[in-house]
């Protein structure tokens, strides 16, 4: 028999948990220094990226490697909207900015929503050809499209300022914006996953042909998942741009590297688990900052070790491989951290022990 907590208790516990997290964030906002606070905000931004990619890769089973493309679209769109006309005029030194972009100036929320919407539109257009493919072919094609977007950003100088990128983006991504959007993302995706649609998406992941024969329009459902995932990727891009304050189309900032970082987060946390994605994102953000020391000169057992650039990426990879050996399905697998599941685990432990 399935064991469940009463609905009311479940609701109260969830509410208490949210209030508790909000209180912790308030404390962090007041007490932590600027640097720590940046990491705390980054966790939420990575969280949005991870949850949105998890919807596409983990829940629907579309092996997409194009996430950085969507993040880039969101980042550029929002940054171009929040930069003031004077700033834009000053920074576009190779070629002047196109007139229709020069004078638009919006608030952060509008810019974020615009970033998400444009990203979703891109996903819709890219989805038509890409989702006709499957497996490795889809992965390659989506990676290719993401690169096309990046190369476009590199070369459309009068729109994106080309290789110079955009500088002086206002640092709007406060702790409340970041965690607010993370909250919206998690609620939306979780609600989608726990609906008739979510079951259909999981069915497509489990067996595409059987899903089709059960009356599910596979292409349409995959497109929905792709577009919703891309919307939140665009949102995360907007948050990321206003966290970085400087964006450019190099491969290491908004290129394939970022896709692989997000992929590491969701595989680490467990493909198909939203709570896993959050755990993966937090672990990745913390480890990646913590390991920054490896790239500075340091003293180990009395020996002076010179700082090696790229060392932390190497260490992260080793950790990643180790996790994959011991937890093949990631930390959470496909399970979710819900009160019901915690209750069940505790109960089981109580019975066996």
């Amino acid at each position, binding site marked *: 028999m399935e064991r469940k907590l009463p609905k009311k208790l479940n609701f109260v516990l969830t509410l208490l948990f949210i209030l508790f997290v909000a209180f912790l964030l308030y404390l962090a906002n007041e007490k932590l220094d600027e640097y720590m606070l940046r990491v705390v905000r980054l966790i939420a931004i990575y969280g949005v990226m991870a949850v949105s990619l998890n919807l596409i890769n983990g829940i629907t089973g579309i092996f997409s490697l194009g996430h950085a493309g969507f993040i880039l679209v969101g980042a550029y769109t929002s940054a171009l909207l929040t930069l003031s006309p004077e700033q834009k005029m000053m920074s576009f030194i190779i070629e002047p900015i196109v007139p229709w972009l020069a004078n638009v100036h919006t608030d952060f929320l509008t810019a974020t929503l615009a970033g998400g919407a444009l990203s979703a539109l891109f996903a819709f257009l890219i989805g038509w050809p890409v989702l006709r493919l499957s497996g490795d072919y889809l992965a390659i094609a989506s990676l290719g499209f993401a690169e096309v977007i990046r190369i476009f950003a590199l070369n459309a100088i009068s729109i994106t300022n080309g290789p110079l990128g955009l500088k002086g983006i206002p640092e709007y991504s406060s702790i409340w914006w970041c965690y607010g959007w993370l909250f919206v993302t998690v609620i939306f995706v979780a609600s989608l996953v726990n*609906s*008739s649609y979510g*079951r*259909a998406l*999981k069915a497509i992941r*489990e067996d595409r042909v059987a899903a*089709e024969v*059960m009356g*599910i329009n596979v292409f349409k459902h995959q497109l929905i998942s792709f577009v919703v995932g891309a919307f939140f990727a665009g949102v995360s891009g907007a948050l990321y741009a206003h966290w970085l304050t400087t964006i450019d189309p190099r491969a290491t900032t908004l290129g394939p590297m970022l896709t692989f970082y997000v992929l590491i987060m969701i595989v680490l946390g467990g493909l198909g688990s939203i709570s896993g994605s959050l755990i993966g994102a937090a672990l990745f953000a913390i480890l990646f900052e913590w390991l920054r020391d490896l790239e500075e000169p340091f003293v180990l057992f009395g020996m002076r070790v010179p700082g090696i650039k790229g060392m932390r990426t190497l260490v992260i990879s080793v950790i990643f491989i180790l996790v994959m050996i011991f937890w093949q399905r990631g930390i959470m697998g496909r399970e979710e951290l819900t009160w019901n599941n915690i209750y069940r685990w505790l109960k089981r432990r109580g019975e066996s022990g």
Partner: protein
Amino acid sequence: MTSPTLDLSKKPILILDRVTMQFGGLVAVDDFTAEIRQGELVGLIGPNGAGKTTVFNLITGIYHPTKGKIVFDGIDITPLKPHQITHLGIARTFQNIRLFSDMTVLENVLVAQHHKFTNPDADRILKINGKSVKRMANFWFWRSVLKVGYLKFEKEMVSKAKELIEKLGLSKFMHEKASALPYGDQRKLEIARALATDPKLLLLDEPAAGMNPKETEDLMRFIERVREEFDLTIFLIEHDMKVVMGICERIIVMDYGRIIAEGTPKEIQNNPKVIEAYLGREWEGV
């Protein structure tokens, strides 16, 4: 070719009209013409590689025939996609069980009801509590995510699914992963999932494959019960002669993509062509 058991008073529900399927140089199904009538239980048999499963794949739209026409319930379904054909009322199971293995038994059955809401013109099945929910199908995506007027339909779907699972005797596995079920019950679950789509015609692809005689016997009773309870027309592929001869009213025999015989179980058993296809021709020199 008409057999004596063919009840002409019943209207044909599925018509395959000179259907041919070619894969490159291989003709998997060759000029296949058959009729299934309302309420019949028809068997499709033949040696390995005769093209039986290909016929099912053609009916369910996984393949589209090179030549010929397939009509279901008065509608030409030849160009339709699998999900559209399911909306019209054909459900199937697979030879090598294809359950959604990482989902629970309940979820497997629930998935099969999803299409009722995403299909804009399935007025026939879009009824909950006797009310047409066609209007609900609009914005169904947003309704289900934002939970606007969604929960009562979810409840209805769950209670329908539970009822079905109980009827088929799988309720003790309700919240188990499909992959954790014993083999025979996985077959039953596949049938339950197919029934949840509200079909008029059920296609069973080797339901008794890999079962022992006892399980096979149970399955035969199970199929007969399901047929009666859900008022179904059943078309099944089977290797196990005991099943075919035991429950089918009419049998179609295929070899090398062609129909070589059709008739009652008794007629088929004594048909020299069938014996030849299964056992080979007697060497004439002896």
